[in-house]
């Protein structure tokens, strides 16, 4: 049972500098309580995906710490990774494997016994309407079906924290709405969800709390109500903040 007091994700003074010298994430700190639906917004190249990759073990940390449910993602990587399910932006699967096989393998990597992952795979394939396509090679699926496979794969080991990087990119409106409903159900049942998206309305609808990152720094963070006070839309707030940041960069002053 996951304790509600331990943050689902705790990022402390994260800094990531690539070998090229680019500072992708610059002293980012924030915490996501267990059970929250958290939105992470930012323009392209702001540091969203880098932050996610640091949290999930796909990137090394230059400085700082990241913990998930109290487990350090570096020193306690096994316990940390067991609790995270990642649906990345890119389709990083064996394109010749079927959806059923992809789920089976992923469940196995997380230490699930064969019987458990078979049952769980069938459940998720059914849940995402993938059963008619379960044995087709991934590359033969439509974009929407591929996106469903990615989400099912993220869920195979029943993680407590779901990290979704642009989960509805390239999917049709109907599927997007279905996914929203499903994610809301998961969140109501106690899953913590960390969502990045370029669809502002998606974040505004789903998330209770959000942060905006730009040029590797958090420029705003708070409850949805704080962003929307005064009748503003999230899109307006986002554009104001990121445009200010851009102007600040051009004139040499910091973002507000």
């Amino acid at each position: 049972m996951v304790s509600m007091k331990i943050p689902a994700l705790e990022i402390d003074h994260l800094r990531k500098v690539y070998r090229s010298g680019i500072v992708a994430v610059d002293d980012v700190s924030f915490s996501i309580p267990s059970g929250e639906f958290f939105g992470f917004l930012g323009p392209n190249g702001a540091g969203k995906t880098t932050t996610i990759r640091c949290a999930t073990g796909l990137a090394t940390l230059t400085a700082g710490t990241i913990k998930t449910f109290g487990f350090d993602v570096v020193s306690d990587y096994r316990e940390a990774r067991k609790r995270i399910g990642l649906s990345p932006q890119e389709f990083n699967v064996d394109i010749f494997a079927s959806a059923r096989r992809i789920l089976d393998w992923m469940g196995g990597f997380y230490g699930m016994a064969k019987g458990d992952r078979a049952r769980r795979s069938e459940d998720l394939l059914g849940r995402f309407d993938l059963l008619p396509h379960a044995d087709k090679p991934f590359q033969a699926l439509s974009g929407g079906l591929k996106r469903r496979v990615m989400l099912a794969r993220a869920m195979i080991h029943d993680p407590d924290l779901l990290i979704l990087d642009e989960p509805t990119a390239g999917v049709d409106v109907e599927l997007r709405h279905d996914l929203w409903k499903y994610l809301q159900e998961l969140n109501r049942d106690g899953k913590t969800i960390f969502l990045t998206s370029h669809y502002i309305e998606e974040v505004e609808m789903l998330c209770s709390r959000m942060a905006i990152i730009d040029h590797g720094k958090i420029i705003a963070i708070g409850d949805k109500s704080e962003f929307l006070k005064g009748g503003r839309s999230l899109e307006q707030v986002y554009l104001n903040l990121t445009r200010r940041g851009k102007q600040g960069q051009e004139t040499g002053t910091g973002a507000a």
Partner: protein
Amino acid sequence: MKSQAKTQPSVPAPGAAAPRIDKVNWIGLKTFIHRELQRPFRVPIQTLMTPWIMALLYIFVFGRVIGSRIEAVGGVSYIDFVLPGILMLNVLMAAFSHTSSSLYFQRFARHIEEILVAPLSHFEMITGYVLAGVVRASIVGAGVFFIAYFFSAANLEHLFLALFYILAGSTLFSLIGLLVGLWAKQFEQLAVLGIFVITPLSYVGGMFNTLDMLPVRLQRITTFNPFWYFIDGMRYALIGVHESNLWAGALLIVFLLVAVGMLVWRLFSIGWRLRD
């Protein structure tokens, strides 16, 4: 997508326990090896038939066609003399090809990220790749030996020694394959080691000739060629004939295994060309 109202509840219970993993993720390792072994059997013509056909041609041409016109070499028939080299070359190339191509393509297609986000240790990842390379190499080697049987060249004087050279050689070259799989940025670079190192050093490493058939200076150089020890050791295991110091050869193989193994582990642990 099915809503919860239409089907029986399938949203997982909150806080469901993550699978328990002890010091070794045995299920994860087994799954990884299983996935790695599926790949060569997906393309059996390339991974299995090609080395077997090449071995068949070598055995036929050098064994029957040319060998029937050559006197005994090293005190044995020419086919018996060359088979150990043919066997070792195919085993080493199979192991190297498996891990180098597997790791490279997983990096290229990015589905290496599936194991990087999973609770698998670096040791488990490396073990998975290497074991799959060893299995593929062993199957190739067994096939070559089976082909040799039809040419009456399938001798086996020292079984456990033969197994040592097959397992140690394929493990070593699986590890070397991982190094190349990490290093390569282009598909073409995968072939570099095979074309410019493994095959030529095998050919001049006593595959077709005894040491005393070479000029004196080349004899001395050959004793620094590690492939000479692999081939000569396998030759002793199969037909009981050797020229090298077998203990020196075995120690060299063990030394290389440890050195290359540590280098691979180090590169995996710092995420070189694996993690951003």
